């Protein structure tokens, strides 16, 4: 059978450092193929070459047996390869149809745009895919998941036969993900080839039928997912045996760590109450927009609750700004490290010290020796892999960046750790290390509140789990009395 896409011996180096040493890949028509690998495995480089953004140093790319050469993204599209990137870049003030046909609008008389024809064909495209989206809606009014579907429609409008999806579910909830999977299956049924890139193994096993694993810039292996189990796949990705995915060693004590009562913020959250004991890991599960992050924003002084009380260590506290929350021993690892966690232009050391500047340098002048010590300590503690701590944090892999964020907060010796999606976009190996860090923190008497949309993670790490639905709590359960099905059911 003819292969839709065949890649062999793909190589790419940047300034003498090989990002991709041997990229190999085969895609058959009508299949969903998972491309797996840790951060730094060379997946992004591989994708960027196939998108026509990077030029390859060596290797061959064949589309239906024919050698192809891409000088720019337009060439890749013309040969039927479309990539839906992790970070979508829609034009928010344009309609869905305008976004789909951006740059190739149907012409009307006098050089104008034939809006009617454009809207009609866009709508036909969306309807064919059974997407419940109107072509005349403004992009900014769509949810992230809907934008993703529009990207798929856009890919198909180019008549792409090979569709790459890079971490498509990283910003959408479980129900929306199922919607996306339904769309993927329809594409599959049409005989197209879908390449699915994700760190979430449960999704890979749910949607894909074959896999290829990259590690350290090279092809490691491939096969049918039916022939491999989850530990086996993890072993290939990580390159070593992993005893247990979730390192959980903590036991909750009886002392209260943080108590939240009747917390409300208009149009965001309503009547949220929970109490977390010292040594406990408390999970918050829910869809995007269910009000999970909003709870943290209220707790950390980033948003003002209209009602409710917060107790830390049994004493009621008032928190008006992040500095207040920090003074009470709270630490917040935000959902998006690039947007709200790190100063990417600055060094690893500066980022680690960013939340402790007044404490580390009580005088106006910086205590540089102390900053260097603190940074070294955190890098050792969390095994942050950086050549030097004066290098920009943007040069680190996702997992190491996340550990820098954790280091920034652990430097303050927090009592309560608020974690919002602590392992998003982090590879399997680094995930385990982060789980160990969380677990150790709880074991030593820390209080952990963790938001996650990954069911396995919530179930694997939490002692109790609160499910959020439409800004309200849909109940709190201990990990023994609940399972994946009921969490998903409650959240929707």
């Amino acid at each position: 059978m003819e292969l839709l896409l065949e890649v062999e011996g793909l190589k790419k180096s940047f300034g003498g450092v090989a990002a991709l040493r041997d990229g190999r890949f085969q895609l058959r028509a009508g299949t969903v193929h998972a491309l797996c690998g840790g951060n730094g495995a060379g997946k992004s480089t591989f994708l960027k070459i196939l998108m026509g953004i990077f030029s390859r140093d060596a290797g061959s790319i064949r589309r239906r047996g024919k050698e192809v050469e891409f000088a720019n993204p337009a060439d890749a599209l013309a040969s039927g390869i479309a990539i839906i990137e992790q970070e979508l870049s829609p034009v928010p003030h344009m309609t869905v149809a305008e976004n789909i046909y951006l740059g190739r609008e149907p012409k009307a008389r006098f050089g104008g745009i034939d809006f009617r024809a454009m809207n009609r064909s866009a709508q036909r495209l969306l309807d064919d895919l059974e997407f419940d989206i109107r072509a005349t809606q403004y992009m900014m009014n769509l949810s992230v998941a809907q934008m993703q579907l529009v990207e798929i429609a856009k890919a198909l409008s180019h008549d792409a036969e090979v569709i790459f999806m890079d971490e498509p579910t990283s910003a959408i909830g479980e129900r929306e993900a199922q919607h996306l999977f339904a769309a993927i299956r329809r594409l599959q049924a049409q005989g197209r080839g879908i390449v699915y890139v994700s760190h979430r193994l449960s999704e890979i096993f749910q949607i894909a039928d074959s896999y290829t694993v990259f590690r350290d810039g090279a092809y490691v292996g491939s096969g049918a997912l039916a022939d491999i189990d989850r530990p086996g796949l993890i072993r290939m990705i990580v390159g070593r045996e992993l005893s247990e995915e979730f390192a959980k060693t903590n036991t909750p004590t009886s002392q209260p760590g943080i108590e939240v009562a009747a917390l409300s913020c208009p149009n965001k959250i309503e009547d949220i109450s929970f109490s977390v004991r010292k040594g406990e890991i408390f999970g918050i599960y829910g869809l995007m927009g269910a009000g999970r992050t909003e709870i943290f924003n209220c707790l950390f002084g980033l948003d003002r609750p209209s009602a409710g009380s917060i107790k830390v260590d049994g004493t009621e506290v008032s928190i008006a700004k992040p500095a207040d929350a920090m003074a009470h021993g709270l630490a917040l690892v935000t959902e998006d490290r690039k947007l709200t966690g790190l100063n990417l232009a600055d060094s690893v050391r500066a980022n680690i010290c960013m939340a402790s500047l007044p404490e580390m340098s009580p005088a106006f002048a910086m205590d540089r020796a102390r900053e260097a010590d603190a940074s070294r300590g955190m890098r050792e503690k969390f095994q942050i892999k950086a050549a030097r701590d004066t290098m920009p944090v943007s040069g680190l892999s996702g997992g190491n960046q996340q550990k820098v964020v954790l280091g920034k907060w652990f430097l303050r010796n927090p009592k309560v750790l608020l974690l919002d999606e602590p392992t998003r976009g982090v590879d399997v190996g680094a995930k385990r290390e982060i789980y160990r860090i969380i677990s150790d923190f709880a074991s030593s008497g820390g209080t952990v509140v963790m938001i996650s949309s990954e069911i396995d993670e919530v179930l694997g790490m939490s002692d109790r789990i609160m499910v959020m639905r439409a800004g309200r709590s849909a109940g709190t359960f201990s990990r023994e009395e609940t399972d994946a099905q009921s969490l998903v059911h409650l959240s929707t």
Partner: protein
Amino acid sequence: MPSRSSIYQPEEGKGVRSMAEESVMSVGDNKSANGWFGSEQRRLLIQEYGIFLAFVILVAVLSVSNEFFLTAGNISNVLLQTSINGVLAIGMTFVILTRGIDLSVGSVVALAGIVSASFVTSSATAGISGAPYPVALGLGIGLLVGIACGAVSGVIVSRFSVPAFVATLGMLSAARGMTLIYGGGRPVPALTPAFRWIGTGNILGIPAPVVILAVVFAVSWWILNRTRFGRYIYAVGGNPHAARTSGINITRTQFAVYVISGSLAGLAGMLLSARTGSALPQAGIAYELDAIAAVVIGGTSLSGGVGRVTGTLIGALIIGVMNNGLDLMGIQSYYQQVLKGALIVGAVMLDQKRNYGA
């Protein structure tokens, strides 16, 4: 309106220690503190050395092509011409590092210049009643005017979230208007010799404005590189969201950088009127553009969080040396403006290429 070069009166000076030497030293120190290795470090190194190299080449070319260029008198002259723009550009660096801009500095130069001059003039008609007052009072008032203008811009930007471009554009117009109202549109001449000293005097043979620039530079370098407040500035400019979640007071940091820029503009205004011996209501027009140019040529990113005050100083020197060199070659100031435009755009183009090509 007098052109820039006619406001700057060439003056004599002797035994000048080269500012270029100082900047080499500080670039070098900075590097060894950061370490020499790693591609990112190398990139930063090239970035700073790149601008320094351009400066050295410029100086070398001018030295060879013109016998007068490397004379003590001329070097002193260049440094003097650079001192006012240098002070303004250093203040601008603080603002730009936080993703802001301060368009009002030229007008603040005029306002602070004329208000302080009115306190230290010996002319009975131009000054306020009781003038001349002691120099210290005049200087204090001038600084206060700058601080006040900066504080107003700072509040508007940090508290009311008005884009810096708009807030300081408003201040540009308002401060110019206040200058004209205050002086009735007339210059304030006949400043007391004691006041004029800050613009014309010497300390150990070095012109006073050059010494003032050196002090401003040293203090700014220390603040930006060695203090907590400096870290706040880089964090707020680099990622305001992350800075906020890390407990950094963004409002206060933003406010402070406009106050710094305003106070340095006040200082520059007094230097200018002290040098020319008269505070003109139309002084400082378009000075903000030269200050921004020096910052940009010096490699500071207009999108905030990245840049060094050493670069700004060299940027200001490059502009100064270029103007002087073209003057010496007898090239009209009209052409100088075209070349300066090309230099600004060229410097940023090279920067972009380095950043993306790496």
